[in-house]
């Protein structure tokens, strides 16, 4: 990928992070760590030329499907969909408010671009598998993407779906896991160890890749590799830093479910936004 395009994508990811922080601060509640750490992955999916969709025609039959299983990172999905043109960016400031289309957890019928409602963990992969199965039945080309968290791999339902997709060789399914190592009660390996995720998926007959979830080029490469596999479902374990982009949040599980600052008291948030806008001082700050 040309250097310039890559920088554009990195900037896009950070604009999305800025919008996440804005919407969370305005909402006064919501999750920070996961949305920030998956921003590079979502940017790669929606802007890296790997997924077919049409914001002007969200119900387009030939669109690929994107399923968000860990619904609590929806501030990221909302910001990404707004950047992709599904609805106006200003609407991001209505997050979690009465009468908003941006519900605290995604509500499929409320907002264009959403393929499912989620919130209770562990249910997304089954739905993605059902979609993939249906497309294979009908010999359709639509691809299915699903984003899952690491924490929801503690749910039995997730493993039931992994078995199912492995059995039916759902090769038109690409799963991206937010391997940020945190959940609410602490670090995943203390709360309920998940390792080795690679070996587990492999033994369930999946194609497994493990990548740096903040390297947009490798995310796109991994997705393209997953699409070249025609014998099994694919999983891409994206190693991420929770709270990525906001130094005071990074790696700290305390930020799982808190907004970046309280409404009207945004001192440190402004600092965070500056860091993000300038890609940590690499580029000139953009005013927006």
């Amino acid at each position, binding site marked *: 990928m040309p250097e310039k395009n890559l920088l554009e994508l990195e900037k896009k990811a950070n604009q999305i992070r800025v919008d996440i922080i804005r919407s969370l601060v305005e909402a006064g509640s919501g999750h920070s760590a996961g949305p920030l750490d998956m921003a590079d992955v979502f940017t790669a999916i929606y802007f890296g030329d790997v997924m077919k969709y049409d914001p002007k025609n969200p119900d387009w039959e030939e669109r690929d499907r994107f399923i968000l299983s860990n619904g609590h990172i929806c501030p990221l999905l909302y910001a990404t969909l707004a950047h992709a043109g599904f609805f106006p960016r200003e609407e991001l400031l209505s997050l979690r408010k009465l009468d908003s289309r941006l519900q605290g957890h995604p509500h499929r019928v409320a907002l264009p671009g959403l393929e499912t409602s989620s919130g209770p963990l*562990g249910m997304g992969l089954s739905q993605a598998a059902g979609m993939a199965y249906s497309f294979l039945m009908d010999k359709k080309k639509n691809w299915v993407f699903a984003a899952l968290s690491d*924490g929801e791999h503690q749910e039995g339902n997730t493993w039931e779906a992994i078995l199912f997709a492995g059995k039916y060789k759902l090769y038109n399914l690409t799963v991206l896991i937010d391997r940020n190592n945190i959940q*609410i009660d602490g670090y995943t390996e203390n709360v309920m160890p998940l390792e080795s995720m690679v070996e587990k998926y492999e033994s369930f007959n999946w194609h497994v890749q493990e990548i740096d979830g903040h390297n947009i080029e490798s995310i796109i490469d991994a997705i393209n590799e997953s699409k070249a596999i025609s014998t099994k479902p694919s999983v891409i374990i994206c190693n991420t830093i929770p709270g990525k982009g906001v130094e005071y949040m990074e790696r700290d599980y305390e930020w799982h479910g808190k907004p970046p600052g309280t409404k009207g008291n945004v001192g440190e948030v402004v600092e965070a936004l500056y860091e993000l806008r300038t890609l940590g001082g690499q580029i000139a700050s953009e005013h927006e």
Partner: protein
Amino acid sequence: MENKKYLDDNWQNEEKLDMIPTRNGYGEGMVAAGEMNENVVALCADLTESTRTLMFKEKFPDRFIECGVSEANMVGVASGLASTGKIPFVASYAMFCPGMTWVQIRTTLCYNQQKVIIGGAHAGLSVGPDGATHQALEDIAIMRALPNMTVIVPADYHETRRAVIASLEVNSPVYLRFARENSPVFSKIDAPFEVGKSIVLRDGTDVTLIACGPMVYEALLASEILARRDISCEVINAHTIKPFDESTLLASAAKTNYVVSIEEHQIIGGLGSTVAETLGENYPVPMRRIGMNDKYGESGTADELLERYGLTAERIAQTVLSSITEERG
């Protein structure tokens, strides 16, 4: 006449009451239960702080079991623990447990007769901004339908603590439901509590208001508003939905001949249904169910949602007024 044994002396003056979420009573009740009985253990599924299981964990770290995000597993493990003599408390948000664990509860706890105490946190609309996916409004219905299950919805923080301790004496599974938001602590610290025995908080002659959970306080305030319109309300705290105290309700209905149920739950299957079944079979009088009217909730602050769905004292009073006017002219 007011129930002076139960009501805080300042109950009419909301500003003077402490504001504490009912879930805190669960945490403190568990600690007390742990001190009373060394077989008490607590399990949680990655929500240790917000369910207040943390209080127990800090006091008895060796008797706390972290299950990760695996509610169905947690219930099964609790059943196994119970079968070997432990008294397990399991907690999550009500949406996830019992929401995602119904058949495990049915088979391994109720059918098996294993005594496990289930704490369903963040129930009702009061989780607010999280939205409909997290607002458990059907949990009473699915728990109440199970043979051998006891269902308790305590009205305030003190009552939750009392309910936890009383649950120790129940020799079958218990479901305790509580809320996230602060709510007024309007009961006395040593008010009576008996599983299966509703409490009349205020005597009245025109209409019976029967409520559970934090809605009990709203019902009391509604009775004040209605008193100013010369409507005398009898207010009942139906903290135990199952086994239901039929005689307290029937005695009240015999006086007032009009019953209104109030709950932060669907009007299908919860307290309202319990009341309707009881009246229908024993003493049919006109009644009205106030609650979620076969709808999902949505994001908003707890106050905004309670207002929108007619669950504030003011809105309850209006509904009562208009329905008795309709009924009696």
